[in-house]
């Protein structure tokens, strides 16, 4: 039940060019499928959580085939546990590889986090210390994933609520080293930057200044919720249950101005709104992408 029979790539002509460039997209939610199919010739891409399509067959694959026929697809893994000390789950890696082969997504990404320990799967993106030992382990895991899927993976920066006493590197330093050692690309989640900066009391702008922007091939934007920490100070939760906040839009504008247009996803995973609401958020991102259309990508600025 839990394995996918290897399937040849969807023998469907692509109605879009790859790479997909400065296009805004949204999380794909099956309840939006009728509205999406009704709206013809819409510009944009869709992102799905890989694990939701790891069943052998049935309606999820029918929906994904319908989406993939007309739109670029982003395959976003949530459970690979790349940041954990355990060896990667070989069966899970094989399922991930099968999905990449079957649907030929324009973008493939995973998280700098872990979710499985011993035999338990915790269904959350858990944090890791940033040390030489974890760096070596993460790089080894990314090598394995990239070998399996035969293409670069985009690694997403996490949102975190606490720190490890043993950490010896800054997060940006750690991510930069991972990218340089493995050749992976990066998925910059701007909301995660804002959430983590607030929670750890550092400047989001400083973080972005230190982040290897030239390796960013996709951006995530999402909403967050507010709680309080032990001292009663603001603690932000990466909840994906509402619109993108003004502060995150401002950071996004700064990132796009410096990096140039890259595919940008509006993530909205719970309290899911009607399709037009999600579409309007994507349109707001598209407006920023289009405004900076002529911007020179940061990585190429000094190349000439």
């Amino acid at each position, binding site marked *: 039940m839990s394995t996918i029979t290897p399937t040849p790539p969807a023998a469907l002509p692509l109605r879009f060019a790859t790479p997909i460039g400065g296009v805004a997209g949204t999380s794909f939610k099956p309840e939006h499928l009728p509205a999406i199919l009704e709206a013809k010739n819409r510009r944009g891409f869709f992102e799905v959580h890989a694990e939701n399509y790891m069943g052998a*067959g049935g309606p*999820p694959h029918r929906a994904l085939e319908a989406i993939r026929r007309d739109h670029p697809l982003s395959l976003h893994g949530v459970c690979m546990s790349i940041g954990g000390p355990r060896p990667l789950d070989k069966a*899970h890696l094989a399922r991930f590889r099968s999905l990449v082969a079957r649907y030929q997504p324009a973008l493939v990404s995973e998280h700098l986090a872990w979710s499985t320990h011993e035999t338990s*799967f915790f269904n959350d993106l858990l944090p890791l210390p940033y040390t030489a030992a*974890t760096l070596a382990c993460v790089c080894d895991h990314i090598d394995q994933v990239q070998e399996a899927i035969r293409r670069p993976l985009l690694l997403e920066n996490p949102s975190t609520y606490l720190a490890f006493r043993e950490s010896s590197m800054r997060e940006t330093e750690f991510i930069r080293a991972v990218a340089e050692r493995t050749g992976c690309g990066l998925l910059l989640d701007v909301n995660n930057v804002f959430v983590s900066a607030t929670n750890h009391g550092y400047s989001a702008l400083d973080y972005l200044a230190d982040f290897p922007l030239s390796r960013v091939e996709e951006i995530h934007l999402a909403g967050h919720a507010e709680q309080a920490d032990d001292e009663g100070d603001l603690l932000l939760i990466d909840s994906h249950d509402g619109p993108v906040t003004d502060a995150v839009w401002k950071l996004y504008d700064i990132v796009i101005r410096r990096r140039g247009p890259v595919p940008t996803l509006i993530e909205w995973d719970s309290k899911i709104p009607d399709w037009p609401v999600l579409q309007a958020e994507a349109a707001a991102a598209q407006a920023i992408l289009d405004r900076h259309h002529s911007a020179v990508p940061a990585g190429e600025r000094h190349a000439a």
Partner: protein
Amino acid sequence: MPPEPGLCFAASFAPALLDPARSTPELVTGPNGKAADRRYDVYRNNVTVSLIDALAAIYPAVQRITGTDFFRAMARFHVRSNPPTSPLLFEYGRDFPEFIETYEHAQDMPWLADVARLERAWLDAYHAADAAPLSPARLAAVMPDRLADLVFIPHPAARCLRSDYAAVTIFAANRGDAPVTRIDASTPEDALITRGEFDVAVRRLPPGGAAFARHLLSGRPLGEAAAAALEAASEFDIAANIAGLIEAGAFTSLCCGDPS
């Protein structure tokens, strides 16, 4: 194999996630010497709530029957004692029906575990492999003297469940939002679960139907299945039932004799 030095963080971080009696792991901290209790609690909450949500998504009829508060309390016990072992959440909760059977506060709903078994089977049928269903014309083309030896290849989505209670009626009445009228739970019911091109369908089988379907789905020949069905219910209509199973999409193919 124990993790290498420097990679013990997960072993220290994980145990308290699902155990509220344990305190915040020593290895974590807030910024600038701040405490990390409420910060660690964010992870505890994410893990527990998301896994309860996963059970609620798999067992919506059980949740509607018990009410949300009852369901979430029951699910919290199960999540803490039996967290998932697979990253595929649609595989989670296979042991939840057995847990319901032993759950102290559900003892006055002896049919609830069977409703849960139906919901679990529904989700398995939903994710089962794709296969074209058997065409009724294939059966019509079989010579009458070969019928008794006929063996059917089950569709990957096809399942048959038996209950000592009216589990199918209770399941069907509680999967949607429509008001539920009074149901006599004491009537035993058997279910056939299949998936056509898109939708999973749950049918109530007539007396003898479960013995018939279970024999055929496990690869026993038609003659043997018919004998088992007639032994269970002397009025069993073989022609109508085999036509019904084929129409429901329970099979993908048939062959005379050994299915290989």
